[in-house]
């Protein structure tokens, strides 16, 4: 099981190469996210059979097929509950959840809020391209006001959702934002997110070069500013994080907004899991316990 030692050799990038090459459009931001995840796993030396990569549906959600781990390609918007179940049944696995802004903040938004407040120990990476890519370019919950898409050809009139503020409000214990073009920075955030014991959320600007002509690499490059470059910034200060999360315009912060380590994650708080991963526990009810269940009814 997850504890078996098989490969004494060092883990390298090639170990995580998927069975097929990504079918994303050339230049898609998601390539950078995939590379950063693979690099983070190599740097942390986590064997691939101890990693579960779970996604919903969308261009970005094709991710598990492009990395060699225990992958799961679930339903549109349902990656987080599936991942929660998987983590609870085998908390020895490192669980990564990957998806898009439509998947996570549209159809799956309810699960996002609840997985966050439950503090499930997993890393949730959203490749936020502010558009629905796979369905060929409709407005997403993070599309800006005024943005013209196939579903709102005269411009979006609805306010976009702010994933960072939402995660903070929902009680996330690790909240960060990355940019697909900032490889080293993103890799570092992913490593921290994996190592954080609780729900880690990273919203990654991952431009859709085919359908989003507003929020392009060129648009982001001059705007993104790393929080890590500001020595004053204290990521344990929730209020400061909330304030920073509202910044949007000429300067858009990326980096770790917030982290707290004083709350137990869901599996750590569950008494039934004290004995170890559920999947390794005996599933038979001992005869004396079974008898006590029946005696209650007599």
């Amino acid at each position, binding site marked *: 099981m997850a504890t078996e030692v098989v490969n004494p050799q060092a883990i390298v990038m090639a170990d995580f190469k998927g069975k097929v090459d990504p079918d994303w459009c050339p230049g898609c931001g998601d390539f950078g996210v995939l590379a950063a995840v693979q690099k983070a796993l190599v740097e942390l030396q986590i*064997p691939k059979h101890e990693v579960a990569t779970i996604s919903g549906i969308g261009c970005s959600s094709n991710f598990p097929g492009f990395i060699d781990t225990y992958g799961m390609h679930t339903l549109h918007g349902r990656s987080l509950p599936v991942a929660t179940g998987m983590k609870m049944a085998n908390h020895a696995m490192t669980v990564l959840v990957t998806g898009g802004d439509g998947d996570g903040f549209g159809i799956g938004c309810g699960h996002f809020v609840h997985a966050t407040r439950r503090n499930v120990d997993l890393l949730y990476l959203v490749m936020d391209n502010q558009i629905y890519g796979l369905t060929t370019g409709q407005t997403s919950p993070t599309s800006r006001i005024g943005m013209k898409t196939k579903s709102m050809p005269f411009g979006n009139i609805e306010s976009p959702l702010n994933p960072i503020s939402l995660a903070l409000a929902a009680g996330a214990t690790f909240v960060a934002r990355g940019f697909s073009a900032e490889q080293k920075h993103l890799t570092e955030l992913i490593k921290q997110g994996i190592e954080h014991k609780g729900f880690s959320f990273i919203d990654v600007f991952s431009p859709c070069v085919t359908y989003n002509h507003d929020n392009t690499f060129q648009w982001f490059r001059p705007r993104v500013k790393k929080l890590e470059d500001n020595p004053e910034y204290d990521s344990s200060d929730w209020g400061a994080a909330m304030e920073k999360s509202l910044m949007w315009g000429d300067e858009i912060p990326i980096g770790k907004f917030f982290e707290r380590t004083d709350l137990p994650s869901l599996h750590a708080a569950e008494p039934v899991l004290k004995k170890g991963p559920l*999947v390794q526990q005996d599933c038979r009810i001992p005869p004396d316990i079974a008898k006590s269940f029946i005696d209650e009814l*007599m």
Partner: protein
Amino acid sequence: MRQSFSVGIGGAAGQGVATPGDIFAKIFSRRGLHLNAYNAYQSIIRGGHTFLTVRTGPDKIATTDGRLDLLVPLNQDTMDRHMRLLSAGSACLYNADLIKPGNPADGVQLCPIPVSKLADISRNKVAQNTLAIGAGLSMMGVGFPALESVLEEQFRKKEKAVVDENISLARSGYDYATQNFKPFAWPLPMTDDRYAVLSGNAAMAMGGAAAGVKFYTAYPMSPSTGVLHWMADHARKAEIMVRQVEDEIGVINMAIGAAHAGVRAMCATSGGGFALMSEGLGLSAQAEIPIVVIDCQRAGPSTGVPTKTEQGDLWQMLGAAFGDYPRVIAAPLDIADCFKLIPEIFNVADRFQCPGIVLCDLLLAEGRLSVDPKDLDFHPVIDRGELITSNGSGEHEAYKRYKITDSGVSPRVIPGVPGHTHTVSSDEHDEDGVLISDEYTNSVKRRAMMEKRMRKMEGIAASIPPPQLLGPANADVTLIGWGSTYGVIDEACELLREAGISVNHLPIRWLVPLHGDAILELLRGARHTIIVENNYSGQFARYLRSETSFVPNGNIRKYDGEPFLPHHIVEAVKEQLAGKTNLSVPAHEIMV
């Protein structure tokens, strides 16, 4: 006719109808008597009308029958509604200070209890209930010590003064009745048997624990919530992780995640929650991850009647999730079967890596039945199917999660095992799990994968037993039912035989796959066939016809929210045999 004795206790929600019901049930089962309890209630926490019926006797009692030997009305409303159910030989125990009796039928004994004289009602709000329990048991010929010990257990968590007060109240009710009321002509017998009394919800939860379920998820929805409550109460002892999830979509998907990790995962809901789960069922089938979902049917559509029973979800089950996919659907026949079915259906789901659906209903889920403890087997066969749990020597051919096989079943690895990484997928995929739905679309592979998955249906059909005809082979009438109507049809058959009509009974437990050919074979010689079901459109009749072209001679249906009583079926069969109609819809005579 089965010898039986029925008590009806009614009042507004919040008046404490449940406690006397529990006490009577405990005393009856400890006398070695069978019992069945059914609670008619509404979706209201205070007020309304709640009417609990407990029927007991030395023979197997699987249903209530509408007759009452003892009525305990806790308010005037209950007296007014149900006095008409009493006939000669029966009795009514009521609070003489508050309740006026109506006009009872001849031979009904009115038993007014002077509650304010026997108890200090300013201190004990439910004094009338305790007095009535004592009085009733005295009239049934039950010795007081039986009540004393049950009361001690009932109030175990309270201080000694509370226990003593209740025992002394019960005692004064008991003595008052001994002095003032006539005992029942049929004192309750005793046997050496002992039964467990449990609801279908508890039975399904316990069946899950016995089956090795380690992960249970739910979102509260009547009438399935009892499964969650049992699971939550016993989670630590049973070492089951129990989670209340944000909605039923999350419920099923969380179960799928846990099942994928390698544990048995189960969830329960009712029709509305099941509707939300249907996309997840498709995921379970397509990704080949076994789970078991329980649907406790309530009267629909929409929010419907949350506290009333119906067998109206069959076609929702048949149509749930789009596309063709393998699955197994079964309906437990009674409350004991609620327990037994769960390990059985898990074995099928695990072996064939597909969803299993248990189609229960409020009648069983919330009803209570005496069950022989031997029938609650916590050590059933557990067959997890073809599971890979270790990398062995590490020398094996490249692992293909969806390997094409004759049985359609591909060995399933537990994530975490080295050397077997792969991606499972809701999109169509090849043997390796690589998506073929996007640019790699390939009609040859798609066809092969469809055929691989659907081949499992043959294996599933072979692993579940065909139905059996109960009763004489050459009967005048054959009654066909499915799921929870088993008990009531069984008793109706007995009554029909006593009336000189020869009848047999075909109960259907496994619904999908349906043993259509076996059913046709069983029905080949049948003279007059009638399908009995608790819904409007004859959902099972339509399903049977669609699978086999079989059309019965008649139908008996009920969709007023209440279950069938044996005499409903008896009268309907008689009118159909007399040629008066081929569709009977019995009216429910108990006003609840």
